[in-house]
């Protein structure tokens, strides 16, 4: 190109230098055009924008006032949070949350033994971070830690063992965050292996295994969790010999774990079905046994593609742990329900404050999990696109 230009350099009618492209008309680029396209294009669009702005203006300032500007931060009983002439606008009663904070975390776990719960929280955090952060070293050890060591250690830590010098703490004293985390952790740890077994059973060629898996999965998925918990709480004690009567927490754990396994089985099955048949045939052609084929070829691939679904299943499980109230456990939400009707803190904004606190708590946990699932999903799709 440049050569052509230079060879014609002496001809006056030829344009010698390249003309800069002129800027697009100002009504097509820039913030104004963006606003026109995205906010004010057409009557419908404009009215929607205005309505939403009005709505936000109506909702957000009172909400912020409630949460922050009118909130009460200190105080030790209802006096701090009732309406009076000194402060006519009372927002959230955060003093109530502060006062009951340890109740929300430990329930009625004996105060001198609460360090054990703290240790459990720390160990659980280590296990979760080690398993989920893909850049950490030796994640196989992390899996052993999370799925074998942690359950055993936590059992002795939380229940206690006189031999180790830890006094026994019966589970009816447990409560709050502790119960919520124990129920969800047990559900998570048990449901994955059980779900894998059920999914393999459902796809198995052995009629007995298939019928049993299908019946179990369809039955559990067809009924609400509440009825499963009812079954665990009122029917399970009838089905076991008198000597083994399970305590309330164990009943709830059995119910939640079985319920979660059935859902997990369907998620894993979807992953198994997504694998091309060639993977199975290739593994068989290499002479691998069923166990080797599953362990080395099929499950690693099937589980990898289902990680996002597994995590969203876990989110559902975490939210469902609130239903263990029905069997008489004191989970996190129940401790808030109990505390908010306590006469010591009888003030008009205490209930909303309790719910807002619970909402923030559950939202942070669930949103973190779903963001994690989204990251993994993007990572996987990137790997596929390569």
């Amino acid at each position, binding site marked *: 190109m440049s050569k052509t230009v230079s060879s014609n350099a002496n001809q006056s009618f030829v344009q010698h230098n390249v003309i800069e492209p002129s800027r697009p008309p100002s009504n097509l680029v820039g913030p104004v055009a963006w606003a026109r396209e995205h906010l004010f294009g057409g009557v419908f669009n404009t009215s929607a924008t205005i309505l939403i702005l009005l709505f936000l203006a109506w909702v957000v300032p009172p909400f912020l006032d409630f949460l922050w500007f009118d909130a009460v931060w200190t105080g030790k009983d209802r006096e701090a949070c009732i309406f009076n002439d000194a402060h006519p606008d009372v927002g959230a009663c955060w003093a109530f949350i502060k006062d009951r904070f340890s109740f929300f975390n430990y329930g009625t776990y004996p105060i001198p033994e609460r360090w054990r719960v703290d240790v459990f929280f720390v160990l659980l955090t280590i296990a979760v971070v080690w398993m989920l952060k893909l850049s950490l070293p030796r994640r196989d050890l992390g899996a052993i830690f999370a799925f074998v060591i942690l359950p055993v250690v936590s059992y002795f830590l939380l229940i206690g063992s006189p031999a180790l010098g830890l006094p026994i703490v019966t589970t009816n004293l447990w409560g709050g965050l502790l119960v919520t985390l124990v129920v969800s952790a047990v559900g998570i740890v048990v449901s994955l292996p059980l779900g894998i077994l059920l999914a393999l059973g459902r796809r198995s060629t*052995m009629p007995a295994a298939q019928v049993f898996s299908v019946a179990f999965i369809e039955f559990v998925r067809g009924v*609400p969790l509440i009825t499963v918990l009812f079954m665990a709480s009122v029917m399970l004690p009838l089905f076991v010999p008198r000597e083994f009567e399970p305590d309330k927490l164990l009943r709830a754990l059995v119910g939640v774990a079985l319920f979660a396994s059935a859902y997990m089985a369907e998620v894993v099955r979807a992953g198994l079905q997504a694998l091309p048949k060639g993977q199975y045939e290739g593994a068989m052609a290499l002479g691998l046994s069923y166990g080797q084929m599953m362990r080395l070829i099929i499950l690693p691939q099937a589980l990898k593609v289902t990680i996002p679904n597994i995590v969203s299943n876990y989110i559902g499980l975490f939210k469902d742990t609130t239903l263990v109230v029905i069997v008489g456990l004191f989970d996190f939400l129940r401790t808030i329900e109990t505390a908010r009707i306590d006469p010591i803190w009888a003030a008009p904004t205490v209930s909303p404050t309790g719910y807002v606190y619970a909402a923030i708590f559950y939202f942070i946990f669930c949103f973190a999990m779903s963001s994690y699932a989204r990251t993994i999903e993007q990572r996987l799709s990137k790997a596929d696109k390569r």
Partner: protein
Amino acid sequence: MLDPRLSDAPGSQPAKVSPWRDPRWRSYAFQAVLMGVIGFLVYEAFSNATENLKRQKIASGFGFWDTNSGFPISFSIQHYSEATSTYGDAFWVGMVNTLLVAAIGIVLATLLGFAVGVARLSKNVLVAFVARWYVEILRNMPLLLQLLFWYNAVLKALPGMRDSIKLPMNIFLNNRGLTTPRPIPEDGLGWVGIVLLLGLVLTIAVRIWAKRRLEATGQLAPVGWISLFLLVIAPALAFVIAGKPLGFDVPQAGRFNIVGGLVFQPEFLALLFGLVLYTAAYIAEVVRAGIMAVSHGQTEAAYALGLQPNITSKLIVIPQAMRVIIPPLTSQYLNLTKNSSLAVFVGYPDLANVFTGTVLNQTGQAIEVVGITMLVYLSISLTTSFVMNWYNRRVALIER
């Protein structure tokens, strides 16, 4: 001559392997063990249950079904009185209440969910933003928390009877619920119903005819206008001709009380609100995924063929999106129905509340009561999934 091992001649014997190495035998053995374990567990459970029931002196069997229940139920459509009704009647009250809240909930959640799902894909960033955070917030909080919030922090915190909030059309809102005018059917309303039913049948017929004609000739019929006429205008005309046969029992605010009208209790409202808002967030995601699943090439090809945007979405995008949307949508409907059992926590007398709550406490017959409740939910779920499987087979892409 072929290698004898490769031939399938009748005389050839399969190579002898020990039963340990034979997959067939191993599978038999495994299944025998599995059935043995399950049989043992069932036997143990059964014998323990008989013994435990005998020890606790709990009756078994369904004799309680016809016994007088003796407890009141706060909300029932059909006739129920604690003095004369039986446990069986209580069961039906609970069942109807469950189906009622589920049916209303499904309709409202679908409307809201589709609206939010479409809004999430809107070009208007504010609309998309609000829709997105609606979905994120509602989906990431337990339904139970939302129900308790609506019930305890919103509906129960409303002003009392005397300072009821007065909404237009004589609707009152207070901490005893929502009072609206109660429609009273009068003579002649039956005719309007017949016209409506006729309109419905005709609409379906017209739609089938229009689809056949479209497939045969490619000509579009004004189905929308015809449906509007048959379903709205014709019944409205019939209503006017029959002399407006519908009266209203309008609630009046007295000094201490509100007289008359139809009262929706806060328990019902809280459950409905919670279920609708929560499920709508999931339906929105289903709808969004369905719309996004229709590849852009489909729209572009339709434009290239000269179809107009509204025809494109009606004939090209929506049918393909619905194929993706309907299966997960059904499972959301089932979830809503199952989640309606959370009525236990706000005191709405649904099946789980009446039956596994009060009836179970009074009779103590855990196995029968929980069994019946589970059977009801199970049959709803299984029926729906059979219908869904049939539908899926019908609409599934037939690859050629």
